[in-house]
């Protein structure tokens, strides 16, 4: 029973990783851009929901949508000054690692601004409900984690359908393979590319809100650790594969929780990064990734 509880906990934690991992992998798959501002947008989702509820006394149903909107706007800001800036000025956005570095700049900027306004401390996140856990049989199930898992699966399913069988999805995949060719075919990059950042911003900010609901704590650096695990999840699943990111997130969540259960919390990082190292040695393209065909500039 305890083991089953641990597996459930692992899958739930994995759902959070998966949501962030999908944001990373979607931007990489579409634009070949490792967007390091994602942990910052995750943090904005959590911190702004907290600030709007606690500092500005808004109800949660107003605070959360506003925080998500702020996350989307922040993501569009990153698009404007990293990806689009490089593309319009130098013709190629990802040939050089410059957008990657500027996106780290945005991460630091977002964290710095939040720190200036609300300090560097941990804040208690008010739970909108008395009890956020559900008891089924002897098992404790956290509602925010169930929601994050269900949302991750639903959103990724929607994303897959969108990419496979709509005209918008066709255009996006054309951009993913070659932005230059897409442009020759009349695909309007300046209108299409922000859509990728809207999706990534929404997913990351949503993950931040769900993280806050789940752990009832927020801080300006809340996105850092989960994002390093989410990036590992993305690599496990294969860069650019949204289903891979889901599988990688769940696997990593399970691995983390079971490691704590069997070996103790001290060895989580050696085990997780060791497993990642082994996987990269044995299957560098990840579980669901395709071996790179001349793309992949990282």
């Amino acid at each position, binding site marked *: 029973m305890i083991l089953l509880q641990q597996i459930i906990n692992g899958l739930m934690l994995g759902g959070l990783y998966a949501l962030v991992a999908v944001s990373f992998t979607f931007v990489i798959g579409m634009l070949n851009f490792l967007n390091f501002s994602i942990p910052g947008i995750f943090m904005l989702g959590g911190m702004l929901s907290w600030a709007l509820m606690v500092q500005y006394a808004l109800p949660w149903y107003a605070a959360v949508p506003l925080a998500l909107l702020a996350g989307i706007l922040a993501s569009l800001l990153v698009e404007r000054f990293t990806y689009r800036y490089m593309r319009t000025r130098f013709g190629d956005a990802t040939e050089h690692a410059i957008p990657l570095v500027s996106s780290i700049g945005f991460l630091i900027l977002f964290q710095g601004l939040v720190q200036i306004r609300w300090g560097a401390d941990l804040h208690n996140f008010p739970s909108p409900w008395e009890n956020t856990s559900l008891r089924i049989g002897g098992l404790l199930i956290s509602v925010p984690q169930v929601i994050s898992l269900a949302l991750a699966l639903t959103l990724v399913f929607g994303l897959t359908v969108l990419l496979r069988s709509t*005209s918008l999805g*066709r*255009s996006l*995949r*054309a951009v*993913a*393979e*070659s932005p*230059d*060719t897409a*442009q*020759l*075919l*009349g*695909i*309007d990059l300046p209108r299409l590319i922000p859509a990728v950042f809207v999706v990534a911003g929404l997913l990351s900010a949503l993950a931040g809100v769900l993280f806050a609901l789940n752990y009832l704590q927020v801080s300006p650096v809340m996105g850092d650790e989960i994002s390093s695990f989410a990036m590992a999840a993305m690599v496990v699943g294969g860069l650019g594969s949204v289903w891979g990111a889901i599988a990688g997130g769940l696997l990593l969540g399970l691995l983390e929780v079971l490691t704590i259960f069997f070996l103790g919390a001290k060895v989580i990082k050696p085990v997780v990064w060791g497993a990642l190292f082994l996987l990269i040695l044995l299957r560098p393209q990840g579980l669901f990734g395709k071996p790179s*065909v001349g793309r992949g500039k990282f």
Partner: protein
Amino acid sequence: MLLEVEDLHVRYGRTHAVAGATLSVAEGEIVAVLGANGAGKSSLLKAILGTVKPAGGRIRFAGAEITQAPVPQRIRDGLVLVPEGRRILVSMTIEENLLLGAGLRRDRATLPREMDAIYDRFSNLAARRDMPAAVLSGGEQQMLAIGRAMLAKPRLMMLDEPSLGLSPLLVDRVFSLLRELNGGGMAVLLVEQNTRKTLELAARGSVLELGRMVMAGSAASLLADEGLQRAYLGAG
């Protein structure tokens, strides 16, 4: 005139890729642009399509100034490019590649019939329509690139070195296809290094050298020109 290009300039930093190109294509006409590698031919076509912003000059298409118009608008107006190296999307299926060509069309009623016509014409594509385009040979990819452009319903098709890397037999096939499409009323602006064949197809032509238009005239007069023969036709 369907297309009029006047004193067009394209610069990349310090490189002056196109330095004052002037040309025109009439409705239903085939016009050639000749020149060696690096003469600025591709830049000229990209500027006409709009993926490269010209540093100076004017472009008019179908009676309207389009020098600053966005690419999708130009394609909707009936301008299309078959790019150098075909630029097929190899991770997408053959059918999806064709559909991308029709992506900007408003009148989609006849689209299924036109798709069928393209499959009838290129049976190699029809048999593998749901496979990734990576399975196609170079010649088949060129047919797919032209088919994709046809589905945009162009009034003017620009082609950038369509014969590059193809066997003589396939080159003949591409050129006879262009002649046939032209017979249906579509104008063609053809950029080629295959000078003799191109001038046999085209009505008029011009020669680009280091971004400058050094010669222009009827195809017959270009074919007869001694300087051109020495430079591009290998005749001595």
